[in-house]
């Protein structure tokens, strides 16, 4: 994580915060506050061409616009020391990119080390932090790689392309590890649902995520859609991809082997994306600033699809020595990281890079963030085969350089870049890739935290009558964060590749990765900014716990973690404290659960003016499913007996309402401390569900999180149109306690459905693990209602209407669609497998695990 290039690149340049990333740092503040320098400060155009090493050596006193590029005085001095002269224009551009916050992780590095230091030993991890993505072995022959990354700021500026290229970027990371990408997920956060700018941002982001992923042929299997005013000026677009590879196809990025050829494959290089890291934000590089394209990159998923197919063909034929995707920092990052990883040098002829715009200058070519490009290291005798493969797929592939030996004295080699005969770059690659600045920034607990924590939601007035409770439930299921998200998810292809076993709105996405054995993986992506605002340490642990639980309730065994840490400005000590606490919490949590962090991404500067977003660590957990036919869905199945199947609540319910969805929706309240987190309990819960699923004792399971038990019951009922009769336990029977039972957000809980003839066997497993299991009711296919005894009965149709109407009302109903409201219930009511007629029955009986897939169909919210 500490060395990788990062899509967050464009994010360091907060568009809403024109100051350069380090503008607030003590010794950079004065310089950055200056207006852009007059032309006189610029490097004069060199009569015979670009600023060369020769010229830099000859003109040591030349003034350079480093503060405008985000470099501090001491950082600039260090560059001069490293080079023994002033940097050339191209070199300065490269250092400013690679030493920027997003590439160097200079503010976060000192904290992120904990992920490695506290990581439990894992013999599954084949590649971890620092690689393009972590790789986890899942069988003797197969491994999976997965990672989540942010594309927040670009998505605010240009929602469609910002979100689309966010998907494209993370997919290339997965591809670079040698894997075939097999699915994507997206965790999205927007401002208030009814804010007019949300109506601009959300549809574009959703269309962009869908447009890119659909066109790549990758199923979208889950994620989150969250609304909160704190994200109004800073929406969060976190994209995850997962890929599968044979263990022996693992690739690395090292540019090993002097004499090997450096090949650039994929799209032509253009001016798009330049400025993402404020390299050219200065007017001093050239006068043609009006020619510069917007700093948001433009995606071309078709080219990426061809890049995927050609890369996989190259891997399988053993034609590449090393490979690296071009992400946020473009060629600069790919060249320096591949060379630094091998300790070799590299000679690059920059004029060989295919350009969309022939007038591009060296520093522009090096800084371009044009999408859909990969850098390959190829042995000379295999070059023709590589070029032929690229040509077969209609992808450009161009030799642009050569790997050169390390120094005779054992010193790493140098990266030398020439352009039309001029040497414009001559640097030690490690000084860019690995030896960037590292800061221990000041931290301070937010001044308002004590008061905030004292203002507990447990003291708010609570519904105490059946009527109030009924009304509260209907209001909650219709609220933006809890309501049905079909409006979003039906814009995503969840079927392509034919291996999607579970997808949204299930608790986790489950993908089959081996058709023979049924081996699969489960993935969930979760975060809760409100909890983290109240307590970043435990907020991070709660996000981890929820993601872990979501994976576990499908019957999977959680094995690894990725994370996307979305925060405000690291120059604000209060934000830095939140960040440090969240990282500490996540690292401790992973150590407790015994699962390692394999990689991730940091996104700072999610801040408009002085107002930072809630600290929002988003955590992805990967699980292994031995046989996907045993996966456990969330929906109540048609009962096995007339009296219904049994519904158990696992775990304990406490009076925990602070930070809850209820407090926010009904009181606009945020205060107190978030629910207690007990990771040992989460482990026990996971083990019980896995054991019970393997033995076939549970036919459905659904975790409890935002919105509590009430929300979970509603989703499980509506998924397949099966109702339930629930009885609140005696100790929760009076006053406002039924409300507490239904809406408390205590962690470590899930409901499971157990057929009556499995009750004893299931009870034994719970007893054996000392997991509290409370029989709270039965499923009911006849009533068509959710009944809470002595409280209320709500028909499923009424529930569904409340649940599904919100997003279409906010973002526009789909036209020409009679099914949009009335039909929704008809659709959900269709017993999904029942329409398979005898005549179309397959030659072989389908897996007899309870019928149809759970991927499609009846809407339900993704609060998983």
């Amino acid at each position: 994580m500490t060395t990788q290039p990062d899509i967050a690149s464009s994010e360091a340049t907060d568009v809403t915060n024109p100051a350069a990333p380090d503008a607030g740092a003590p010794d950079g503040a004065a310089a950055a506050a200056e207006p852009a320098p007059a032309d006189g400060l610029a490097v004069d155009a060199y009569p015979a061409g670009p600023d060369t090493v020769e010229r830099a050596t000859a003109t040591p006193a030349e003034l350079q616009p480093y503060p405008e590029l985000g470099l501090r005085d001491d950082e600039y001095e260090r560059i001069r020391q490293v080079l023994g002269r002033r940097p050339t224009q191209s070199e300065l551009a490269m250092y400013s990119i690679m030493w920027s916050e997003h590439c160097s992780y200079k503010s976060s590095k000192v904290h992120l080390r904990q992920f490695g230091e506290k990581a439990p030993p894992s013999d599954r991890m084949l590649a971890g932090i620092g690689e393009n993505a972590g790789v986890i072995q899942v069988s003797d022959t197969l491994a999976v790689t997965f990672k989540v990354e942010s594309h927040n700021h670009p998505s605010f500026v240009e929602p469609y392309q910002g979100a689309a290229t966010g998907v494209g970027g993370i997919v290339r990371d997965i591809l670079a590890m040698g894997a075939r990408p097999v699915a994507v997920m997206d965790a999205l956060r927007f401002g208030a649902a009814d804010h007019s700018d949300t109506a601009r941002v959300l549809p574009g982001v959703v269309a962009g995520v869908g447009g890119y992923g659909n066109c790549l042929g990758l199923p979208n299997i889950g994620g989150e859609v969250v609304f909160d005013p704190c994200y109004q000026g800073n929406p969060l677009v976190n994209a995850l991809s997962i890929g599968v590879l044979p263990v022996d196809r693992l690739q690395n990025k090292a540019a090993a082997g002097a004499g090997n050829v450096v090949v650039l494959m994929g799209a032509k290089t253009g001016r798009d994306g330049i400025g993402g890291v404020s390299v050219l934000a200065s007017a001093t590089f050239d006068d043609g600033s009006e020619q510069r394209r917007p700093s948001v990159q433009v995606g071309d998923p078709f080219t990426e699809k061809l890049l995927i197919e050609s890369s996989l063909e190259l891997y399988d034929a053993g034609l590449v020595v090393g490979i690296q995707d071009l992400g946020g920092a473009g060629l600069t990052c790919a060249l320096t990281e591949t060379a630094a990883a091998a300790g070799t040098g590299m000679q690059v002829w920059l004029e060989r890079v295919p350009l969309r715009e022939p007038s591009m200058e060296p520093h522009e070519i090096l800084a371009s963030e044009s999408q859909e490009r990969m850098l390959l290291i190829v042995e000379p005798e295999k070059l023709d085969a590589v070029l032929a493969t690229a040509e077969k797929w209609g992808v450009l592939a161009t030799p642009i350089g050569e790997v050169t030996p390390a120094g005779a004295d054992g010193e790493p080699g140098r990266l030398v870049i020439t352009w039309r005969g001029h040497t414009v770059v001559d640097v030690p690659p490690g000084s860019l890739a690995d030896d960037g600045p590292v800061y221990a920034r000041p931290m301070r607990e937010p001044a308002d935290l004590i008061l905030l924590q004292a203002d507990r939601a447990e003291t708010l007035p609570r519904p105490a009558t059946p009527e109030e409770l009924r009304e509260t439930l209907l209001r909650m299921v219709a609220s933006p964060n809890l309501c049905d998200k079909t409006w979003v998810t039906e814009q995503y292809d969840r079927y392509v590749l034919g291996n999607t076993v579970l997808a949204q709105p299930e608790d986790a996405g489950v993908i089959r990765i081996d058709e023979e054995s049924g081996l699969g993986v489960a993935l969930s992506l979760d975060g809760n900014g409100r909890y983290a605002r109240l307590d970043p340490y435990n907020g991070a642990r709660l996000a981890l716990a929820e993601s872990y639980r979501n994976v576990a309730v499908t019957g999977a065994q959680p094995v690894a973690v990725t994370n996307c840490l979305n925060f405000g400005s690291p120059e604000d000590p209060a934000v830095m404290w939140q960040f440090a606490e969240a990282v500490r919490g996540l690292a401790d949590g992973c150590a407790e659960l015994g699962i390692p962090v394999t990689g991730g991404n940091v996104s700072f500067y999610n801040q408009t003016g002085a107002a930072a977003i809630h600290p929002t660590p988003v955590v992805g957990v990967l699980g292994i499913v031995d046989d996907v036919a045993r996966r456990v869905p969330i929906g109540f199945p048609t009962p096995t007996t007339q009296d219904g199947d049994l519904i158990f609540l696992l775990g304990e319910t406490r009076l925990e309402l602070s930070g809850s969805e209820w407090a926010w929706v009904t009181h606009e309240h945020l205060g107190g401390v978030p629910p207690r987190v007990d990771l040992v309990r989460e482990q026990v819960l996971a083990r019980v569900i896995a054991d019970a699923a393997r033995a076939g004792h549970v036919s459905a399971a659904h975790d409890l999180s935002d919105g509590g038990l009430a929300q979970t019951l509603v989703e499980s009922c509506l998924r397949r149109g099966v109702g339930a009769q629930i009885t609140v336990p005696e100790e929760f029977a009076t006053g406002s306690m039924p409300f507490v039972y239904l809406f408390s957000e205590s962690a470590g809980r899930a409901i499971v459905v157990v057929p009556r003839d499995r009750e004893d066997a299931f009870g034994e497993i719970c007893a054996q693990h000392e997991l509290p299991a409370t029989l709270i009711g039965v499923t009911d296919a006849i009533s068509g209602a959710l009944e809470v005894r002595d409280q209320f009965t709500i028909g499923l149709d009424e529930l569904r209407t409340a649940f599904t109407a919100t997003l279409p009302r906010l973002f526009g109903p789909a036209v020409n669609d009679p099914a949009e409201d009335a039909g929704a219930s008809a659709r959900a009511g269709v017993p999904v497998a029942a329409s398979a007629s005898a005549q179309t029955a397959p030659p072989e009986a389908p897996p007899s695990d309870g019928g149809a897939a759970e991927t499609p169909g009846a809407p339900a919210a993704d609060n998983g």
Partner: protein
Amino acid sequence: MTARVGVVTFPGSLDDGDAARAVRLAGGEAVRLWHNDPDLRGVDAVVLPGGFSYGDYLRCGAIARFAPAMESIVAAARDGLPVLGICNGFQILCEAHLLPGALTRNQHLHFRNRDQLLRIESVDTAFTNSFTSGQEVLIPVKNGEGCYVADERTLDELEATGRVVARYVGGNPNGSQRDIAAITNEAGNVVGIMPHPEHAVEALTGPSLDGLGFFTSILKHLAGAPA
């Protein structure tokens, strides 16, 4: 001898693997064909799979139509080769003038993926002879440009000659005229369908098993076809 069903891969094809799997599950042998190769390798039928051939950048299916493999397929189709175009394949068939009309942007302008009820209107084609007339089936639909349009005369003719193969039931997902989801040519050997029967062939991964009928129909058709 099992039926050999070709599945063409264009640059940007996405559901080619799924179509091949569906052929296998139906009991046929899937033969992968390459867009740039005119050799159809002696297949008994062809599936043009879903996806975004050539990025769909000019107009869906407009470039794929000119692929060398397509030239062979168009000629063979005129001689009776069964050809099923799914989604992007349907668009290609229209562009290649093997089927009338065109597929345009969904009326609501969104890509939409949902489980869709269809009514089988014609069981006289090479791909629907396993169904009963009027049978309702549940098949995923997923497209951004699936709105079927044609002039009134063409639509009337399709209706009059029984060439509307399937219609959307319980809601039209994309605004197609007369709820048309699938059509066939005059001879009944070329079918274009917007929804994805290849995604409804396994209980574990699809909403139903109804999609298999489209592929078992091929085998039934070939078994009954004169040698």
